[in-house]
């Protein structure tokens, strides 16, 4: 099997602070791959590097064998990489379903003439996009909010909405940055189920998460970061028994 996402010797320094240092790993298609580590270990920075929000100081990221370190986030979306954020990024000036339909952006041809004169092709595409988006909202479990203003939705619902938006772009790999943060036990269980269902559809999932129970339950492989460096990498079983990890993180 070839790697879908490959990270080689990736480093990022903010001034003198080495947030991510010499990190290498690879994710195979169809895996659920989690990145864990104590606060400030560089997990989110790593995600921001992979998804093009930050430019790496050195090293490279490959998606399907293509180097993507210098590409903009929108170009990565074109190549099938989508993400959600720890600090949710929802367009509060739009309704819930419009936020998800925004995720369909790349699949909708946006011709200025068909748009300005609202030709039938546009109405047809919009209708299809709306149906697909409604389906996705149902899939992630916020189907009851279709035309609710995003600003009127609860935190938990918005978290799921953000996942629906990422899925709407039909990604090959989706990166979820702390999807369980702020969720209660019931919501977290639902999230675990959702991530499983996403993986079943053949979408590769990369996860940054604090909730150990969640991560250990659903991940195929894990990467443990500490002070920006790789502490360990392997299956949940290997990680659970790794003495370095126990000392640094699991608090053994």
């Amino acid at each position, binding site marked *: 099997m070839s790697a879908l996402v490959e990270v080689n010797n990736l480093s990022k320094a903010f001034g003198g602070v080495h947030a991510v240092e010499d990190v290498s790993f690879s994710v195979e298609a169809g895996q659920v791959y989690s990145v864990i580590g104590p606060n400030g270990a560089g997990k989110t920075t790593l995600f921001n590097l992979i*998804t093009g929000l930050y430019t790496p100081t050195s090293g490279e990221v490959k998606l399907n064998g293509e180097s993507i370190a210098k590409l903009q986030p929108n170009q990565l979306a074109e190549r099938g990489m989508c993400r959600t954020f720890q600090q949710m990024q929802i*367009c509060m000036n739009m309704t819930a379903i419009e936020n998800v339909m925004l995720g369909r*952006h*790349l699949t909708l041809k*946006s011709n200025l003439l068909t748009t300005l004169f609202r030709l039938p092709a546009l109405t047809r595409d919009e209708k299809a996009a709306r149906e697909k988006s409604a389906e996705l909202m149902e899939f992630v479990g916020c189907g009851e909010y279709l035309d609710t203003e995003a600003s009127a939705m609860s935190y938990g619902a918005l978290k799921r909405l953000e996942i629906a938006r990422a899925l709407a772009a039909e990604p090959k790999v989706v990166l979820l940055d702390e999807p369980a943060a702020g969720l209660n036990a019931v919501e977290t269980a639902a999230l675990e189920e959702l991530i499983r269902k996403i993986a079943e559809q053949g979408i590769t999932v990369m996860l940054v998460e604090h909730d150990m129970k969640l991560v250990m339950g659903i991940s195929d492989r894990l990467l443990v970061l500490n002070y920006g460096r790789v502490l360990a990498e392997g299956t949940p079983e290997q990680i659970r028994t790794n003495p370095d990890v126990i000392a640094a993180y699991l608090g053994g």
Partner: protein
Amino acid sequence: MIARLSQFRLKGLVFLAIVVFALPLFISNPFHYGLATQIALIAGAVVGLNLLVGFAGQISLGHAGFFGLGAYFSAIMTSNYGWSAIPALFVGAVGVAIIAWVVGRPILRLKGHYLSMATLAVGFIIAIILNNERELTGGPDGMPVPSFDVFGWELSVFGQYSLFGMEISGDLAWYLFAGMVLLVAVWLAQNLIDSPIGRALRSVHGSEVAASVVGVNTAKYKSLVFVISAVYASVMGALYGHFHGFITPSVASFDFSILLITMVVLGGMGSTIGVIIGAVVLELLPQLLADFQEMEMVLFGLILMLTMIFMPKGLLPTAANLLAKRRSKSAGGDA
């Protein structure tokens, strides 16, 4: 469901059409027609500016510059080179689109105050050029503009026309024409907003990061909406020149730019009908307060500040919210 939605979608346009066509029943004075025509044309430019400011969340403090460019291009081509008004209007709009794209590309990378300053400068530069190119533009004294003509048929405020067998004055004819232009401007703007492009524009306002991670090329869309709003201004500027028959560089002035942005903010950023109300109020206000003309800028500044502080959403959205709240309260009382 979809049918109901589409009805809902153009509700504002229908309302506006009723107002535009009913207005002649209540006024007959040429001065009032003139005022209404001017309001309609300026409102058209404001609808375009609202696409940029209200929907995409970018600012332009130099939009009168594009209005002035459109007006002067049409004036110069029709009076000095004998062009017809329609080709002058279109070529002018294309020219302004190119200028806006070239200028917009770099400056839209800026945000907040920096973008304000850059757009302000664009407006100033255009105004200075119009003032100084005396040979071409007549300088500060302005220049005359021929009547608007369509394939040899002239639209002049002094003319007499017959419409469906009715004799109508030139003032009324101009008013009806400007009203229809405004309706088309609103229709196009609403179509743009309710589309993938419109969603992309609004997402740039809502969260640029969110937009970019699902594949929206935010830089491209910012330039696009800047160009579209500049074209709106250019077309309305050209018509404005033909209507008045005479233009001065004041059409491109800083004061006028501020007036346009005040109309957007007062009426309600992101509300197409709201900003038209903003245009109506701010065009009528100086008429009512003609005695305090020198205080006009102070007044506009005050309105801008008070709106930002007390109703940041603007007139129409605030009123709609109040109404909805009252309605839900009375519904709650019934239950």
